[in-house]
């Protein structure tokens, strides 16, 4: 049972480069999320999706884009990397059925922008 899988686990980017963080889940969950975690700041929601074809902005969406073409996949794209995007990124999924449930997190992707 894989759960939520994120790739890559580590990446170093130069300023201005682009990349995509991949996230896939095999639990048929409807909700998916991208968070970033910075020291002493907790987790901040970047984007979320309530189902295939539906995405919306969270607290800190600037500099990121997402898509949700399938239930399983929710990639996060950085178009022009900036040092402020150095962070640990977590993807999560949830089987929300009208009563809030439990988020399942991936192991994280550590991104450094130099």
């Amino acid at each position: 049972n894989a759960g939520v899988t994120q790739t890559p686990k580590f990446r170093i980017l130069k300023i201005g480069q682009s990349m995509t963080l991949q996230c896939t889940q095999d639990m048929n969950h409807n909700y998916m999320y991208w968070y970033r975690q910075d020291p002493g700041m907790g987790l901040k929601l970047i984007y979320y999706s309530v189902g295939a074809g539906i995405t919306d902005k969270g607290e800190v969406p600037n500099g990121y884009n997402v898509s949700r073409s399938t239930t399983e996949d929710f990639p996060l794209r950085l178009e022009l990397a900036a040092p402020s995007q150095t962070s640990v990124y977590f993807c999560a999924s949830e089987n929300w059925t009208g009563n809030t449930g439990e988020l399942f997190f991936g192991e994280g992707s550590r991104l450094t922008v130099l």
Partner: protein
Amino acid sequence: AQSVTQLDSQVPVFEEAPVELRCNYSSSVSVYLFWYVQYPNQGLQLLLKYLSGSTLVESINGFEAEFNKSQTSFHLRKPSVHISDTAEYFCAVSGFSGGYNKLIFGAGTRLAVHP
């Protein structure tokens, strides 16, 4: 809008001592409350949750939290900690906002258990 405040960024404690990690929330609607734990180099995992019913909820590894509506608190406690409890703990509140369910996390409390 919901928000969460974790009152301590770090809590050092000796093994077998009791511990309390404090969490206060604000919300204008009914909420669900959670504690998540993050062990080093791992993602978060759910420790316990309050949805409704009994205000005292427990985890399988001895932690408990009590929902106090009048004080808007959801403090996490354990009567005797182990070295393996060393981790970062996040309090979170969930509620409907903008038509969708959203989970808002606190800044985290790093629990360091010393021998």
